[in-house]
């Protein structure tokens, strides 16, 4: 009886170790070539300019914690654009990425704050009236963030896609003042990922 609290602690330690080992065994394969472990977050995509505080270029994509909603964040020279979509409801956000921090805002009170490093971005996002946390890994084309804007009978129709590794696409289209609809399948062989500097 005198020893039972110690047994409880040891059991917890062992269980924690077993769980961590189980998680480690299920760890997803790295999505891109393993980057050298960066000590400074800003070294993410510009190893030659590690001292620079502005992120040169990177795209992170993944699902929010809990799943069901995809998110992609593209950054170019400190300009950041994010797209959050569950296949129907969607939100575009725009902002900055510098000093290891990303801050974006969008219409209808949408906002995103987070941190990034060589391996990915993590943070929380509020969009379509809901809030999620997320951790998204670095992705390379054809995975990434795509956007098209076309005029159809004078109405501007904007479509967005989060393309996750394995060409899993989540996207939606909307024209001003209209409810969004699921996006058609994107041909990633011909489409070009969004350059955040071209976002409008």
């Amino acid at each position, binding site marked *: 009886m005198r020893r039972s609290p110690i047994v*409880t*602690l040891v059991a917890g330690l062992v269980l924690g170790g077993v769980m961590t080992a189980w998680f480690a065994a299920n760890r997803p394969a790295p999505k891109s070539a393993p980057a050298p472990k960066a000590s400074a977050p800003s070294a993410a995509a510009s190893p030659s300019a590690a001292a620079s505080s502005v992120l040169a270029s990177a795209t992170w994509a993944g699902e929010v*914690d809990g799943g069901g909603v995809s998110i992609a964040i593209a950054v170019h020279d400190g300009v950041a654009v994010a797209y959050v979509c569950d296949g129907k409801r969607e939100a575009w956000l725009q902002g900055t990425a510098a000093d290891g921090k990303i801050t974006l805002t969008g219409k209808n009170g949408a906002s995103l*704050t987070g941190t990034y490093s060589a391996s*990915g971005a993590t943070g929380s996002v509020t969009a379509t009236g809901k809030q999620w*946390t997320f*951790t998204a890994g670095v992705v390379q084309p054809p995975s990434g963030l795509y956007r098209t804007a076309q005029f159809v009978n004078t109405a501007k129709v904007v479509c967005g896609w989060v393309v996750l590794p394995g060409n899993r696409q989540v996207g939606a289209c909307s024209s001003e003042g209209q409810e969004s609809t699921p996006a058609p399948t994107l041909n990633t062989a011909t489409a070009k990922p969004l350059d955040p500097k071209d976002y409008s």
Partner: protein
Amino acid sequence: MNQTNRLLLIPSLLGAALAVALGVYGRVHTPTRVAVTIPVFSSLFHAKLWFASAAALLALVQLLSALAMWGKLGPKTPSWTPALHRWSGRIAFLLVVPVAAQCLYSLGFSSFDTRTLVHSILGCLFFGVFTVKMLALPKQGLAGWVLPVLGGLVFVLLIGLWLTSSFWWFSENGIKV
């Protein structure tokens, strides 16, 4: 140094070391974002919500059984109360360990908003204070306030953890399995 301080010295140092170690590990390692499938639940994330909620419920059992053991709920305490307290505590602890392992290994110590910062700090403190309490329990000659204070701290920390995680998520997204 009085007897209580002397008896609590090593447990407190070990508990503090664990809390700091968890926080440092959570902060410096790269979050791995693993996903494993769990029966019944739609995802590991949902399983965590319910494991933590079950632990929070058991924490209430802990509070009530402790009050009964200290004679605060009337003079008649059932003989099985101490056993209920021990076993509900053990089960609650074993429920939160996998949750914390996933939090630490997959997500890490976060500070991007107040909720995650508070949750991260409470999480490290919880395991630190729980360790102190477990190591202090077998000691004889402790002052009377020690176990109620440690137990109360563990309770408050666990409820705080639940409020900043499961409760927050359920209130934002509705109750889902």
